[in-house]
């Protein structure tokens, strides 16, 4: 009760600080000096503090299971473990928006503190554009999704958090993902500010790069955690399903990845300024688009919270106001500086530009695949869903040239490349990669020119990046780590796809089933009473070809609040391969439906995603050393 009211009023206070800022900022803009009025920074700090207070109040309401709060009532339950009571705060629509708002304000505060060397007006305008987004979120929260709605009479018990969300990976997945999404809001606001102040130059790029990389790191880790959760919890037996919501997180990621590359060109060579601006504006717009598509309930997926058309219309209008106003600012106010036209065909700039084109291609494939069903339904009243074959067909062929450019690009020079650098060694390495890929495929009796070339070029990138680590002059350590991570990612995804095996069958207790690579024996079943669910664990003995035995214990969880059965896969993870077993009840019989999969290199997929992010992190430490 008390905390709900505290939270609600401090939320309103936060909005009031936004309004107070306007006259203060207006006054400060007229004064010509180098530093921002300290009051502005203090007001932002107070705003941050009041929203933090509001967020903490919501967390405490969840911890105390205060069911007079509607959000708590809808998403919590007294028997839930404390950890999931806390993570339940952002496991729902209202709470997660409050968290977003908190991150928005936190980031602009950090921006104001770290940008002291930059022009005053640019900083103030960044603050203004960011405040427009912040006010939008405030209004959205207070009008359509207040987290502090009061319930009377007070219910004695809550409805419970969706069991599939009760997972450690998922407890930290949303906050990290939001840090990534919202991080791009700073990139968005400061790009618009830079346009108005005519500050789009290499100095701007150098400072903004840190924000781009920061949000890229969070987004990478956030997506990876989501993928790990889907693999372990949903029991679908894969790491990526081209689910609309996964795509929505991938789009800003692709955009930010392109931006990281183009902003480097702007920093080093003062080229591609307009292109960089377009990318910075679109990455936040795409994030907001994602919020809209998920929260309005237009798309159906595991992430859709209770949908309410009113909310959808609010986000839609807000989103298009952002898009239209940034379009106006870009087209009317932006005066591009003259760029020196000295581009050679073979230079680092060209290869980065090519990288950007590929990224845009990947992005548009994902975008079309995601929104096409919505357009089709409105225009032609047909319901379709776009599945993995669409993406595989359009994305995989383009991977080959992409990978090859990625190997050649980083080793070329700025401005003009000397052809002597492309030497026999590199060509030899390429031939070795192709040969190796042919041998691998030959061994498993899978042939095909395209697959050979694909694995060959992935191996080529792998070898080249490994080779580059041994060059003494480590200029671009973070780029090397990330590219190495990417080559490992592509390799492990392809090999995982080729070498995975699967079988599905119905089996009774005590039965044995022989399959292609061994046999499986269903030994027994036990059930345990847990804090908020009943756990049913099956014991399976699996023997494979080499007579090695393993035991797998998949589990069914029968939750009481809300009444849902989830199946927890049992996964034996090893360095090279995962063994994955999941079971399900067959209604009205004593059979259990089981699915057994061997998935090689799963671990490597997570590891390489981590390496990608590490590459970004190294960028910050390495600079300090210099």
């Amino acid at each position, binding site marked *: 009760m008390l905390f709900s009211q505290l939270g609600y009023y401090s939320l309103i206070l936060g909005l009031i600080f936004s309004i107070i800022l306007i006259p203060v900022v207006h006054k400060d803009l007229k004064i010509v000096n180098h530093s921002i009025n300290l009051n502005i920074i203090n007001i932002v700090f107070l705003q941050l503090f009041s929203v933090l207070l509001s967020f903490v109040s919501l967390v405490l309401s969840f911890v105390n299971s205060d069911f007079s709060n509607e959000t708590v009532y809808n998403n919590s339950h007294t028997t839930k473990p404390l950890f999931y009571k806390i993570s339940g705060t952002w496991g729902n629509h209202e709470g997660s928006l409050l968290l977003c708002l908190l991150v928005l304000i936190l980031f602009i505060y950090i921006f104001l503190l770290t940008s002291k060397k930059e022009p005053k007006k640019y900083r103030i305008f960044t603050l203004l554009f960011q405040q427009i987004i912040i006010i939008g979120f405030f209004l959205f929260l207070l009008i359509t999704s207040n987290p502090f709605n009061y319930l009377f009479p007070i219910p004695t018990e809550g409805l419970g958090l969706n069991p599939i969300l009760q997972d450690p990976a998922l407890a930290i997945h949303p906050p990290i993902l939001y840090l990534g999404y919202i991080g791009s809001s700073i990139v968005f606001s400061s790009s618009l500010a830079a346009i108005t102040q005519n500050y789009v130059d290499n100095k701007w790029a150098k400072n903004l790069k840190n924000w781009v990389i920061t949000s890229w790191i969070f987004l990478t880790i956030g997506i990876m955690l989501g993928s790990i959760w889907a693999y372990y919890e949903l029991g679908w037996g894969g790491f990526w399903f081209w689910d609309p919501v996964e795509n929505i997180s991938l789009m800003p990621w692709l955009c930010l990845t392109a931006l990281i590359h183009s902003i480097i060109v702007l920093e080093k060579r003062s080229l591609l300024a307009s292109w960089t601006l377009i990318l910075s504006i679109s990455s936040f717009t795409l994030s907001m688009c994602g919020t809209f598509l998920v929260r*309005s309930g237009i798309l159906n997926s595991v992430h859709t919270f209770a949908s309410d058309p009113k909310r959808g219309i609010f986000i839609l209008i807000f989103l298009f106001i952002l898009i239209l106003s940034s379009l106006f600012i870009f087209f009317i106010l932006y005066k591009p500086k003259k760029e020196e036209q000295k581009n050679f065909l073979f230079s680092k700039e060209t290869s980065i530009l090519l990288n950007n084109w590929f990224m845009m291609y990947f992005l548009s494939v994902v975008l079309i695949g995601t929104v096409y069903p919505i357009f089709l339904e409105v225009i032609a009243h047909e319901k379709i869903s776009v599945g993995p074959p669409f993406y595989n067909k359009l994305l995989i062929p383009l991977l080959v040239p992409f990978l090859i450019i990625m190997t050649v690009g980083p080793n070329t020079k700025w401005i003009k490349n000397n052809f002597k650098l492309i030497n026999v060694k590199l060509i030899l390495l390429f031939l070795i990669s192709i040969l190796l890929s042919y041998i691998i495929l030959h061994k498993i009796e899978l042939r095909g020119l395209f697959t050979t070339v694909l694995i060959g070029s992935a191996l080529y990138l792998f070898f080249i990046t490994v080779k580059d680590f041994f060059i003494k002059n480590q200029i671009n350590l973070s780029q090397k780590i990330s590219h190495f991570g990417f080559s490992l990612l592509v390799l492990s995804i392809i090999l995982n796809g080729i070498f995975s095996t699967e079988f599905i069958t119905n089996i009774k207790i005590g039965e044995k089933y022989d399959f292609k690579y061994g046999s499986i024996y269903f030994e027994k079943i036990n059930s345990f009473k847990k804090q908020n669910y009943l756990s049913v664990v099956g014991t399976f003995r699996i023997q494979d070809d080499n007579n090695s035995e393993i035991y797998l214990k998949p589990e069914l969880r029968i939750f009481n609040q809300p009444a849902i059965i989830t199946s927890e896969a049992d996964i034996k993870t090893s360095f090279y391969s995962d063994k994955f077993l999941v079971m399900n009840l067959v209604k009205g019989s004593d059979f259990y439906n089981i699915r057994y999969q061997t998935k090689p290199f799963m671990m490597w997929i997570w590891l390489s995603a981590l390496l990608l992010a590490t590459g970004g992190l190294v960028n910050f430490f390495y600079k300090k050393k210099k």
Partner: protein
Amino acid sequence: MKKKTFLIFIIIFVLFCFFVFFKSLNKSNIYVPNTTSGKQLSSFSAKTLFNNEKINSDLLFSENKIYLLNIWASWCVPCRAEHDMLMQLSNNPSIEIIGLNYKDDFINAKKFINKLGNPYSRILTDKDGTISIALGAYGVPETLIIDKNKIILKKYIGPLNNQSLKEIMFLLK
């Protein structure tokens, strides 16, 4: 000049996107998972409407035929609309239509049948709605197409229309 045309072009495109999203927001996006089709019908027993004898579903769906199980009620307006289609289908000897009278009053149900005709070879009653829930029904009317192995071939939520009639005829071939 070129810049301006480009801007106008983009704005038109953006507004078009806005329109599409706005339209799809107002659309009902209640997603009906088609999980029941292909599954076996769970068995149940019910009393018949006219002579109150108890019947088990296992005996009911035992012949080598296609069965149509229609959940209906006299108070349900869309049921009236689809009743003609059922009458039409009842002339086809290769399909047997069974009615499940959902939460209805006996006298009203009888009036309904007398007035509009009886397409059903048998009518079962589901006075408290529990059988329909067990069958996974969302409401009335709802139609299940079942084969002799009691596998649900198709499920129609809401009244039948020409399209669904065509699909059913295709199944009978």
